[in-house]
């Protein structure tokens, strides 16, 4: 379970949120001028980054506001939470790919994930301190 810091409500369980996929994908300015390839890109193609990824989340059972988040798609470490419409903050230095064992499954997604957002501050992007990733070094395991 991710622990996500809503810019308006503070830290809440992932179950209160909805995922909105890649952030910063603008609606085409002149849709009528796009060819099929470009239209396909807009409709169906999204980045599928392995590493720091800017994505949208909706606090659906809280304040019902959208916001952006920078999250590492390997460690699931949340590196920044920032308002929609503001530019993507610089990524924290890439964390080493940690062991992908599910032995330690949720340990990296609960305790260390939340960026520090103080009180009700909604404007400034907050970037968590670097190097907070709990890197589990256990070997890949738990296959069935």
């Amino acid at each position, binding site marked *: *379970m*991710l622990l996500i810091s809503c810019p308006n409500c503070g830290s809440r*369980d*992932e*179950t209160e949120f*909805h*995922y909105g*996929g890649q952030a910063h994908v603008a609606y085409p300015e002149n849709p009528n001028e796009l060819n*099929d*390839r470009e*239209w*396909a*890109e807009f*409709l*169906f*193609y*999204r980045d*599928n*980054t*392995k590493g720091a*990824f800017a*994505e949208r989340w909706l606090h659906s059972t809280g304040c019902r506001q959208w916001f952006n988040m920078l*999250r590492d*798609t*390997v*460690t*699931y470490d949340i590196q920044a939470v920032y308002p929609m419409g503001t530019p993507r903050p610089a990524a924290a230095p890439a964390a080493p790919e940690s062991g*992908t064992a*599910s032995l330690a*499954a*949720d340990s990296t*997604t609960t305790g260390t994930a939340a960026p520090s957002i103080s009180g009700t501050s909604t404007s400034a992007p907050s970037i968590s301190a670097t190097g907070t990733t709990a890197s589990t070094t256990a070997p*890949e395991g*738990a*296959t*069935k």
Partner: protein
Amino acid sequence: MSTQQLPEHPDFLWRNPEPKSSYDAVIVGGGGHGLATAYFLAKNHGMTNIAVLEKGWLAGGNMARNTTIIRSNYLWDESAAIYEHALKLWEILPEELEYDFLFSQRGVMNLAHTLGDVRESMRRVGANQLNGVDAEWLDPKQVKELCPILNISDNIRYPVMGATYQPRAGIAKHDHVAWAFARKCDELGVDIIQNCEVTGFVKDGNRVVGVKTNKGTINTEKVGLAAAGHSSVLAEMAGFRLPIQSHPLQALVSELHEPVHPTVVMSNHVHVYVSQAHKGELVMGAGVDSYNGYGQRGSFHVIEHQMAAAVELFPIFARAHVLRTWGGIVDTTLDASPIVGNTPVENMFVNCGWGTGGFKATPAAGMTFAHNIATGTPHQLNKPFALERFETGALIDEHGAAAVAH
């Protein structure tokens, strides 16, 4: 049904060669699809100077993590054709590969819990029958007869209103399937190279001529990508994009139990599916975690949710315990159908996007992909699944048949 004895743990079934400096074709990814592709390249097309490169150990990705459901009751003609071809191959493969991987045609039931489900299910049964796929509609009483431990009473949140049933569907031992293909590949002269990660490609203009790996550069005339959850990462290295999102998909098993569950039961609506493995574990899965992820693990609430649904549908499971959970990385597309075909890079081919349900397709994916790689043009069966469909709009929307996964 009785608990079956598993075969003895086998001795070494394939060599562990060092890569040669060049091959006629290189397959990236040593999961089920990569191995099946290599097997059919060698067997059907006489291409034996080929290699399968696997960054970890053989079949340690989704091939080792799936819940092994095999069925072909998809809605659209294109899907029914390729999945049904796969099912027919499953029926003959144990003999052909000389390896009993316990393919058990115990049937698969897809439950309907709402009027919408019922209509959609009946429509699918009709479509299946027209396509020669064995499918029938069961009312709740027939559901209960086939699977007595299912709760068909009215006093649950989503009562069972019926089910589709495919008797020829079932399960198989996934790791043994991989080993069966690997052994045959090896016998045919294919090099299976483990701990060999592809880190880049060598191109001459827009034509791929080699792969860069942690074991050095390997020249090759053709490259087939079969990297499941990592397909986008490889495509990016090669300089093109795929309409794929990688998500964690989890599953779990209980401790061993006496045989209580004679078939496979899936429910899209309440998000759970269950079978009982040959040894006796209850094997359960759910839908994907919502976020993109390459971590081979997901969030625990997804498991809680699926267990709640399982216990309501199967009250006797309340006394079972979760023994182990795990996750894989599945490569999902927006129409819940795979991508198999040519890429914008010359001599590079891609097989991906099977998402939550590609195990069942392993033999047909391998057969068609091998054809595509060997001849440069798609097989009849994989032609509709080309990358171009996202531009032409000829999508193959299988969300109804693929929804919870599998």
